[in-house]
């Protein structure tokens, strides 16, 4: 059966809670480093690293590595596509929430 175009469709890559948290944090700043993302999302180093790799491969985030005071620093920013898809995903979630509330009434 074909899907109706007005039905909310969730982006599986973004919907994973860890990745959604990363993208949501990045959507409210210009860029952030690895430590900041770890702090805000509460993810472990390994998990965060793995999620960032997937998001970078999908073109949703841009990762740059640099040295600050001779220490390595990984900086992450949303790409325009990542920003758009994150906003769209949250819109879809809001729609789903709205639909479930309507069906409850």
């Amino acid at each position: 059966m074909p899907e109706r175009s007005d039905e909310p469709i969730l982006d599986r890559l973004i919907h994973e809670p860890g990745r959604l948290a990363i993208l949501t944090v990045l959507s409210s700043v210009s860029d952030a480093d690895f430590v900041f993302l770890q702090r805000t999302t509460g993810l472990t180093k390994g998990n965060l690293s793995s999620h960032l790799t997937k998001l970078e491969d999908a073109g949703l985030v841009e990762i740059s590595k640099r040295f600050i005071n001779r220490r390595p620093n990984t900086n992450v920013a949303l790409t325009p596509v990542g920003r758009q898809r994150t906003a769209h995903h949250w819109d879809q979630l809001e729609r789903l929430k709205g639909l479930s509330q309507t069906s409850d009434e």
Partner: protein
Amino acid sequence: MERKKLESAAANYSYLRGLFSIPLGSLCIVAALGNWGLGPLRHAWIFIAAALVLGAACLPINRYYNEHYGRVTPSTRQQSRAFVATIIAVAVMVGGSFLLRSRASWSLDLPVNPIAASFGLLMLAYYAIVVGLRTHHVVIWGGLLVAGLLPVWSGADPSNIGLVLAGVAAMTNGILDHRLLVRTFEPSKDLGVENSDAGT
């Protein structure tokens, strides 16, 4: 997942690094002591040296935040709001002080403490615009505003007492902002200074 909580935590981080307020508050107090001519602070160069030392104290504070909480660049929108809030703050501080009590002919010359009142008002406005008011902001800066507006400041120029009050308020507010930041950013299990970065 709480979207708003994540977004506001990220957006407000730069403005809740409250330990920076300790040198800033100390500078206000040192300025007041210098104006009173207390001890060695009566020499202008001592004040300049103290200002440099307090400025230098910001470097380890900055390093502490970067290593333990990370680096972030606020969004352009957030930076614009902070810029506008700073412009408003300076205008309120200067204009308010002159209007409430000064030697200017257009001054209302009220028996208030212009420094305390205008600093309290500007900080309330700043936090309301940039971060969103929390209880401690309202209590501390609202308290400073009310204290400054009480009609008990007749007599000698109360600006120096206002500076001391502003300094103490800044330091107290900074400590509470820092406490809020620590609570907001719970440490993740494997986060340590030695783990301050990770390749992806």
